[in-house]
């Protein structure tokens, strides 16, 4: 794969060498911990004690912090402004009257921001350190149907090509006098001349692709070998089970807290 979709940062770190499914279970562990555990600061503890060390081990800490910041910032600003200031009947914390930061809203905003950061950073950590084709090969080795792994891999290869095609269509229509700037109405009028050619031209490929993969024994029921060998360290299956059990533990803890409240 020369050009593929994704943020993969090539590297030789220990995190890069982990089996993709091990990393996937770690993401599940972080997600369930961040979303299920009660408390305002638990998500932040998870970020500093689990996500950050994992990113540091993978030599992607700086990239991860920058990308997480970029994605999560609009959410954080929104949640602090809206829930922090507009919490109905909240206790004023800073300022007074209508324009005041409410204590309940602030707690909610801090909790939500922690959850947003957990979701965003765990997915990005996975994307930065995992080759998409390695993930697919690992899934295929585990008996995931070839049709499903084909869908995932083909998507990652098609998207960059589509983006290039979208850019070409924008240029072509502009050359013919289509306005892509100006008032909202102007821009809305541009939607159809841009979207319809993009979709129609991409659908033309479908038939050809179907013939091509059928000619390459896509529907053959026998065993297929993979070009990429996915290796794993001896301790990794145990680590996966630990992550899965830990995630189940988070859920049970959550249940226990909800029942005892």
């Amino acid at each position: 794969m020369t050009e593929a979709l994704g943020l993969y940062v090539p590297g030789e770190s220990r995190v890069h060498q982990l089996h993709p499914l091990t990393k996937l279970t770690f993401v599940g562990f972080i997600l369930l911990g961040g979303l299920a555990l009660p408390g305002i600061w638990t998500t932040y503890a998870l970020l500093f004690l689990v996500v950050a060390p994992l990113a540091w081990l993978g030599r992607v800490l700086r990239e991860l912090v920058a990308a997480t910041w970029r994605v999560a910032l609009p959410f954080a600003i929104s949640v602090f402004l809206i829930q922090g200031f507009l919490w109905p009947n909240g206790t004023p914390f800073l300022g007074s009257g209508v324009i005041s930061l409410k204590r309940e809203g602030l707690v909610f905003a801090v909790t939500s921001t922690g959850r947003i950061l957990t979701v965003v950073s765990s997915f990005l950590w996975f994307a930065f350190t995992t080759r998409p084709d390695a993930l697919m090969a690992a899934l295929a080795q585990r008996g995931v149907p070839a049709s499903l792994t084909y869908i995932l891999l083909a998507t990652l290869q098609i998207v960059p090509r589509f983006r290039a095609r979208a850019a070409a269509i924008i240029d072509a229509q502009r050359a013919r006098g289509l306005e892509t700037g100006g008032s909202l109405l102007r821009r809305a009028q541009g939607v159809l001349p841009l979207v319809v050619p993009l979709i129609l031209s991409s659908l033309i490929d479908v038939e050809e692709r179907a013939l091509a993969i059928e000619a390459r024994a896509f529907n053959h029921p026998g065993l297929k070998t993979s070009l990429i060998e996915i290796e794993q360290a001896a301790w990794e299956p145990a680590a996966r089970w630990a992550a899965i059990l830990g995630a189940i533990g988070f859920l049970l803890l959550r249940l226990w807290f909800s029942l005892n409240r």
Partner: protein
Amino acid sequence: MQTPRKDFTTVTLVLIPVAIAINIAVGQLIYTLKIPLYLDSIGTVLVGVLAGPWAGALTGLLSNLIWGLSGLNPTYAPFAAAAAAIGLLAGLFAESGWLRAWWKVVLAGLITGLVAAVISAPIAAYVFGGVTGAGTDVVVAIFRSFGFGVLPSSFAQGVSSDPLDKAVSFFIVWMIVRALPMRFLARFPRAGSVK
């Protein structure tokens, strides 16, 4: 509903990645045009219409998971269930013959958008504090200042954007499918439900 297995022909399997790429490419195109719509489920609706509700649901689900795991837009992944529902409903509406008249197409889109808003609201409220980080958060702010809860405000935000977005998406898919030659359409398992 017919058996799902019949819908997953080779042509369907090839259509799904193309559809996901359409979702991503058109979504980004609309974003650069700065139009207050998403139009990031056109491919999902297309698969639902051409290959049935199950293939549509799978397209929606995988679309959002790929969006998340590729790191392209990690905030989409939690909404995978809503995306799956969009594909499922598109398939069911097409199956019941709603894609033959333009006003039924728009109505089907509006209903689908409403369902998507119902599924998305609790996810947005729990994971994202009820906000989207985009312009439609004005709706959340207005509802919050009137004393509504986090969940109802988040739902109001969804209702303000999703039904219109899905109606436009359904309409575009309807136009495209009508423009496709019958020779091409006949390759898909559910071609009969459109023409």
